[in-house]
């Protein structure tokens, strides 16, 4: 993010709440976020694979947490951000907010899927099984269903304005539910399994491990922003394809 | 009393109308005209608050209907394309439910009298699935008889499926209501000869 863009945006923030003015701004921001994502991910992976010490109990297999944990963090964070944009669209009736929420959903689902996938990969050498009904894995699975529900609902509605608003109601319902789901799943888990297997048996964390995860999480964050901005540009073009400025824009591309 | 300012309506990819405005005071009758698909129903739905316009607002006695909500709906009757008549309920039950939802207090006597005036006396206790399209329309229109004190009627194609006598009767009802000092907005494909001052809003001139 350049200071140049930031100051201009803060002068008249609402200027950029219109899809037409946001479209070129997003184009300028994407490379910056993309570059930051690449740098941070490379740095995070370097710390994770070469700097962080080998774990005494789990050996090298544990290193997958440098992808697993940041992806899990982002999966929840993106849902909250998505609900925020959706809610803002509902309250202020701004079109761009709804588009932003729709653009974030696939990134969130991707992060959730990565977290589940790497969780399974970690589970095999650590617990000897691909899947355990661990509280966090289970909540993560339900979160994936919530993302799918959001995307399926929006896909089923032809009218984009209704799709935005209906998605917003669903996202807000989901955001109220996520903590409830998480705690009930945790309760269920302790009731049925005791403490036999749990992610809590993860190694106590060294400072370098923590640093690696933070850097990776920042990298995933920047990636999500870049991906969402790219996606929102497509959504803007699709929704505004009848307007004059899109025609002009497409004209200059030819 | 009723004002619409700078209304714009977009359905799908089409902009039906934009910059549309009108105002209506008590004792006035407004006919919304236009070709099929010109947005007559959408305009009526915007005016009664079911649909929010892409731009502009509708005001009732000076305040936006979006902030008035129930205060506004308490004072209007909207009869849409669909009759809101349930197959499994009798004509009398349907009318009672419609009036109760609208916040009116009605008893069985009033409901039966209203149905009687619309020529539905024999059908009052029949399940509505036995009724013809025209009779269902009458059940839904019978609410107008019980809504004489409401200052705004919004009627979408009230004459559809009615026979000549019923059309005449509805015209009389509308004329009487306007004469009482209330406002009526309606659409119709048939030639409406309603006594009194009627203005026409032709949506084709607002289309773009």
């Amino acid at each position, binding site marked *: 993010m350049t200071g140049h863009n930031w100051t201009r945006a803060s002068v008249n923030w609402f200027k950029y709440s219109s899809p037409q003015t946001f479209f070129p701004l997003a184009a300028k921001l994407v490379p910056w976020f993309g570059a930051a994502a690449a740098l941070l991910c490379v740095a995070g992976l370097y710390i994770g694979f070469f700097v962080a010490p080998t774990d005494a109990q789990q050996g090298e297999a544990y290193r997958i947490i440098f992808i697993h944990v940041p992806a899990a963090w982002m999966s929840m964070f993106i849902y909250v951000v998505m609900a925020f944009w959706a809610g803002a669209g*509902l309250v202020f009736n701004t079109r761009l907010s709804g588009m932003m929420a729709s653009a974030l959903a696939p990134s969130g689902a991707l992060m959730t899927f990565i977290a589940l996938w790497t969780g399974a990969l970690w589970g095999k050498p650590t617990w000897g099984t691909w899947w355990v009904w661990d509280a966090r894995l289970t909540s993560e699975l*339900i979160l994936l*269903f*919530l993302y*799918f*529900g959001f995307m*399926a*609902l929006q896909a*089923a*509605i032809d*009218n984009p*304005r*209704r799709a935005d*608003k*209906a998605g917003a*109601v*669903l996202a*807000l*319902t*989901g955001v109220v*539910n996520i903590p*409830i*789901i998480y705690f*009930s*799943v945790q*309760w*269920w888990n302790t*009731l*049925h399994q005791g403490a036999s297997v749990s992610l809590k048996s993860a190694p106590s964390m060294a400072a370098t491990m923590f640093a690696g995860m933070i850097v990776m999480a920042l990298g995933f964050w920047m990636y999500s922003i870049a991906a969402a901005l790219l996606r929102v540009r497509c959504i803007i073009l699709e929704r505004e394809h009848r307007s004059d400025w899109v025609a002009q824009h497409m004209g200059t591309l030819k | 009393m009723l004002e619409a300012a700078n209304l714009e309506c977009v359905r799908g990819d089409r902009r039906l109308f934009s910059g549309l405005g009108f105002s209506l005071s008590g004792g006035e009758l407004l006919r919304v005209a236009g070709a099929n698909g010109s947005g007559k129903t959408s305009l009526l*739905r915007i005016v*009664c*608050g*079911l*649909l*929010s316009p892409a731009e502009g607002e509708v005001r009732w006695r000076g305040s936006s209907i979006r902030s008035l909500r*129930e205060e506004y*709906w*308490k004072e*209007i009757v*909207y009869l*849409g*394309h*669909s*009759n*809101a*008549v*349930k*197959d*499994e*309920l009798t004509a009398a*039950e349907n009318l*009672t*439910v*419609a009036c*109760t*939802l*609208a*916040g009116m*207090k009605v008893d069985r006597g009033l409901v039966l009298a209203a149905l009687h005036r619309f020529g539905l006396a024999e059908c009052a206790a029949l*399940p509505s699935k036995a009724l013809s399209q025209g009779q269902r329309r009458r059940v839904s229109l019978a609410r107008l008889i019980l809504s004489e004190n409401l200052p705004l009627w919004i009627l979408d194609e009230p004459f559809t499926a009615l026979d000549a006598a019923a059309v005449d009767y509805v015209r009389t009802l509308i004329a009487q209501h306007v004469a009482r000092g209330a406002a009526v907005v309606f659409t119709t494909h048939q030639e409406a000869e309603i006594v009194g001052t009627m203005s026409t809003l032709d949506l084709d001139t607002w289309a773009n």
Partner: protein
Amino acid sequence: MLTALRCVIYRDLLLAMRRRADVLTALLFFVIVVSLFPLGVGPEANLLRTIAPGVIWVAALLASMLSLTRMFSADHADGTLEQMLLSAAPLGAIVIAKVIAHWLVSGLPLVLIAPILALQFDLNQSLLWVLTLSLLIGTPVLSLIGAIGAALTLGLRGGGILLSLLVLPLYVPVLIIGAGTVDIASAGLSAQAHFLVLGAFLVVAAVFAPWAVAAALRISAE
């Protein structure tokens, strides 16, 4: 407002009575699904006793979901919903009335028949009561949450399948705590905490769901 509430409940019950077949199908579905499980997993009494609460709860979840699609769709199709949206009474109150009616018609029968089905699974008598009570508190929550999904998917392509995708993940806490009451009681512990949590779900859902449903219904009218 109370008049409208009473009127809508009365109307929906009347409609349900005149369309009894619909109500009975959902109930039969519940009975059949529960009865299929022993055929699938075998008649071993201990196993059946262990899975009974989960099976009955999941079947109740599915049965109450089946009837959700009907909650608003008939009113939507014949224009009654428009009149409800333009009602002089707050839409939230009408929504509460619709949910109460839905529960009385499709939730309460499940609660009443559940003890008989639980006998097939050889649950002992005290657990029978725990199960019934958990369903009594839990099924209204299902109706409330389900109403949000029903309102959101109103008039959409593939509404029924979409509805299950939206609603089932949100049912998870109710399922866990509801079935958990029986599990914990069968372990000889007090299920009081579970019941309190279930009650808290009911309160939270009763406060927030009508708002969300009302908003979703207004959106669906556009």
